[in-house]
C-alpha cells in the first residue's frame, strides 16, 4: 500500500517540468555579440538575433551601453520581451579600437560568466560595429548561420583565415610560450564581410596585424592547414594540397635558434610554356621563405609568438626563462626555414619535353 502511494506521488515530482523552463518561442537566441566603446568609454554591446518568419529569417539588432559588458547585456534584457539566452552564441566581435585598448575584460567576462560557451569564435571588426552587425544581404541567406559558417571547416573556411575561440584567446593571454592570431573582418559591398588579416597581441592588447598570406603560414605552423589553396608565381600557379612543419629548437642558453622544415605538396594548375619543375620549386620556396622572414621579423618586434617557437623550448627552459620568454628571449631568437617542395602531379596534361630532360639529368631530385 505504502509503495503504491509513493508511486502515485512520484510523477508529481518527476513530471512537473524543469524548475525555470522558458519556452523556446519565448527565448531570443543571439548568434553574434558585438562589443565596442563609445566616446564616454562605456561599452557598447550589440546583439544580432535571427528571427525566423515563415520562410525567411529576419535580423534583429539590439544594443545598449553601460560601464561593463554584463551590465550592458542586462540593459538589453530590460528592453526585450523575450529572455536572452547567450548559450548558443557563435561569434564575439570586438571593434578594432577596443582591441587595441585591451582584450582582457572581454575575454575574462566571456570565460567567467557561464552563459557563454568557451568555444564561441572571436573576431575583430574594422568597420563600424552596429552597421556590421545589423547588415544582411538581399535574400537574407546569410542572416542566420552565415556568420559562424565563415569560420567553420565544414563550410566557408579557407586556409588563409585565422580562427580563434574564446578559450584559445584566454589561454594565449595567460600562457607563457604561445600566442594567438585573431581574425580581422571588414564589411564588404557584396557579401556580408571579408577577411582582411589577423591581429597579433602583446600584453593582452592588439599591437599589429598580419596579412592573409602571413595568416596562412601561421595556420601551417599551428598544424591547422587543411583544404587547399592556390599560390601564383611568375612561371606557374600551383595548388598546395598539403603542408606541414617540423621544428627543432636548440641553444636556449646562448643563442636560441629554431630551424623549421616546411614540406609543401603541390599540384600544378597552370604554367608557362617550357617551364621546368625545378624552376617552380625554386620560385615557390623563395616565395614562402620571403614571407616567413617578413612575418617572423614583425612578430619578434611585437613580442608575439604565434608560430609557437616557445613551445619547442618549454622543456629546456627554467621557470625564470619561461616567464622571460616573450619579452627577453624571443626577440633574440634566430629562425631559419627550409622549404621542401613536392610536386605531386601536373594535372591532367602531361609535362612538356623540356621536363623529361630535367628528369634524366637529375633522377629522384628532391628526395633525401
Amino acid at each position: 500500500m505504502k509503495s503504491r502511494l509513493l508511486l502515485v506521488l512520484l510523477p508529481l515530482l518527476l513530471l512537473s517540468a524543469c524548475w525555470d523552463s522558458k519556452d523556446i518561442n519565448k527565448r531570443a537566441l543571439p548568434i553574434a555579440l558585438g562589443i565596442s566603446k563609445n566616446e564616454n568609454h562605456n561599452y557598447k554591446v550589440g546583439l544580432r538575433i535571427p528571427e525566423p518568419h515563415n520562410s525567411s529569417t529576419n535580423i534583429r539588432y539590439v544594443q545598449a551601453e553601460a560601464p561593463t559588458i554584463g551590465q550592458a547585456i542586462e540593459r538589453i534584457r530590460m528592453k526585450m520581451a523575450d529572455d536572452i539566452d547567450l548559450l548558443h552564441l557563435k561569434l564575439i566581435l570586438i571593434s578594432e579600437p577596443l582591441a587595441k585598448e585591451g582584450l582582457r575584460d572581454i575575454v575574462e567576462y566571456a570565460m567567467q560568466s557561464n552563459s557563454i560557451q568557451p568555444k564561441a569564435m572571436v573576431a575583430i571588426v574594422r568597420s563600424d560595429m552596429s552597421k556590421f552587425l545589423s547588415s544582411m544581404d538581399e535574400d537574407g541567406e546569410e542572416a542566420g548561420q552565415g556568420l559562424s559558417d565563415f569560420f567553420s571547416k565544414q563550410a566557408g573556411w579557407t586556409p588563409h583565415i585565422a580562427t580563434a575561440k574564446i578559450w584559445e584567446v584566454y589561454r594565449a593571454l595567460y600562457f607563457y610560450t604561445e600566442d594567438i592570431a585573431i581574425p580581422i573582418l571588414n564589411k564588404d559591398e557584396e557579401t556580408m564581410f571579408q577577411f582582411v588579416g589577423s591581429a597579433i597581441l602583446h600584453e593582452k592588447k592588439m599591437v599589429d596585424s598580419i596579412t592573409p598570406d602571413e595568416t596562412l603560414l601561421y595556420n601551417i605552423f599551428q598544424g591547422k592547414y587543411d583544404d587547399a589553396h592556390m599560390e601564383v608565381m611568375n612561371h606557374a600557379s600551383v595548388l598546395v594540397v598539403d603542408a606541414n612543419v617540423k621544428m627543432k629548437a636548440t641553444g636556449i642558453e646562448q643563442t636560441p635558434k629554431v630551424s623549421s622544415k616546411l614540406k609543401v605538396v603541390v599540384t600544378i594548375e597552370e604554367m608557362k610554356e617550357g617551364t621546368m619543375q625545378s624552376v617552380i620549386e625554386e620560385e615557390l620556396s623563395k616565395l614562402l621563405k620571403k614571407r616567413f622572414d617578413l612575418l617572423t621579423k614583425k612578430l619578434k618586434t611585437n613580442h608575439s609568438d604565434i608560430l609557437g617557437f616557445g613551445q619547442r623550448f618549454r622543456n629546456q627552459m627554467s621557470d625564470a626563462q619561461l616567464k622571460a620568454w616573450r619579452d627577453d628571449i624571443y626577440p633574440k631568437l634566430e629562425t631559419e626555414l627550409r622549404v621542401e617542395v613536392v610536386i605531386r602531379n601536373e594535372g591532367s596534361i602531361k609535362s612538356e619535353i623540356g621536363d623529361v630532360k630535367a628528369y634524366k639529368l637529375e633522377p629522384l631530385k628532391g628526395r633525401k
Partner: protein
Amino acid sequence: MIGKIAHYFTFIMIHISLLFLVYPENIFESTSKGHWLPILIGCILEFLLLWLYLRVLVAFPKLDVIEIINVTASVWVSRVLLLPIVFHFFTCIILLIRSHVEIVTIVLCPNMPIWVLMLLIGISLFAALSDISAILRASCVVAFIFIPVIIFCFISSLQNIELPNMMPISPSNSFSFLQSPKFHSSFFAFGGYLVLGFIRPYIPLEVPQKWRYLQIFAIVIVPLFFISIYLPLLVFGQEPVSKYLFPMIEAMETIDLYWLVFERVTIFYVAVTLSFVIMYISLLIWVSSLILQKLYLPISRNKLAICVALVCYVGGNLIRSWDEIEWLLFNDTVIRFYSIIAFPCLLSLLTFIHRRRTTA
C-alpha cells in the same frame, strides 16, 4: 555472473566519482611542473594501503571491519576507532553532493535553487534503503551505460591537445608540493577503498579477488588519475589551467564536434559523474547507517539511513558558497588522513597483535 563482477565496477565507479571533482584543481594548485610526481605519490600510497587493508580483510573470512575490530580488540575499541570514519563518510557525502550541485548550477541550470538540487540525495537514499546487493547491481548497470560515454568524452577532447604543453616534465627539486595544503586536500580522491571493508560480507573477497582489486587499481584507476590531470594540462597548458576551478569541465567545454547532435559534450560528462556520485553516496549512506546501527544506535537500519540522508541534506544546505566547500575540504584533512592512512595501519596492527596472542 553479475554478483561476481559487480563489486569491481562499484570500485571503479567510486574512484571516478571522487577523482574528477577537486583532484585536478588541487594538483594544479600544488605544483607547476612535473605533475606526474604528486599523482604517482598518491597512487602508490593508495596502492599500499589498499594492499594492507585487503590483507586484513582476507585474513578474516566473512567478517566486516566492525566485526574484525570486535574480535581482535573489543566493541569499545571499534566504537572509538570508527567514530572518525563515520565523520569522514558524512563529510564525504556532504562534499560530494554539495559540490556536484554547485557544478550542475554552473554548467546546466544557473537559476535552480540549491535546496531543490540537493534533493538528488533522495535518489541515493532510495537506493540505500534497499539491499546492498541492489546497490551493487545498480552500480554495475550505471557503469555499463556510462563508462562508454565518459570514454567518448575523453577521446573527443583529444582534438585540442598539444603535446608540448606538458613540459617541463622534470619535477621541482624541492618537493615543495608535499607541504601544500591543496596537496593534502587532494587525498580526498584516494579514500574510495575504505567502503570495501564494510560491504565485505556481501561480496566475494578471498585471495584471488584481492589480487584482482590491486590489478584493477593499477590498470584502470591509476590511468584515470593521470587522465584527470594530463587531459586538461595538454589542452590548456600549466599557466592557464591553474586559473580554472574545474579544469576537467573546461577541457570538456572545448570539444567541438559538428556532427554531434548535441552541442555540448560537457552535459554528458556532468551527467555521468553525477550519476556515479549518486551511486557512491547511496553506498556511503548504507555503510554509515550500518556502522551506526552496529555500534552506536541499535535501531532499524532504514531509519538510520533516513537520518543520515537528512543530516547530510541539511548540512549541505548550510554550505552557502564554494569557499565554504573548500573550507570543509581543508578542515577535514586530519580526519581524512586518519581514515585513509592511519586506520588501515591501526587495523593491521590490531590483527597482528591478535594473531600473536592467539598463537602464543
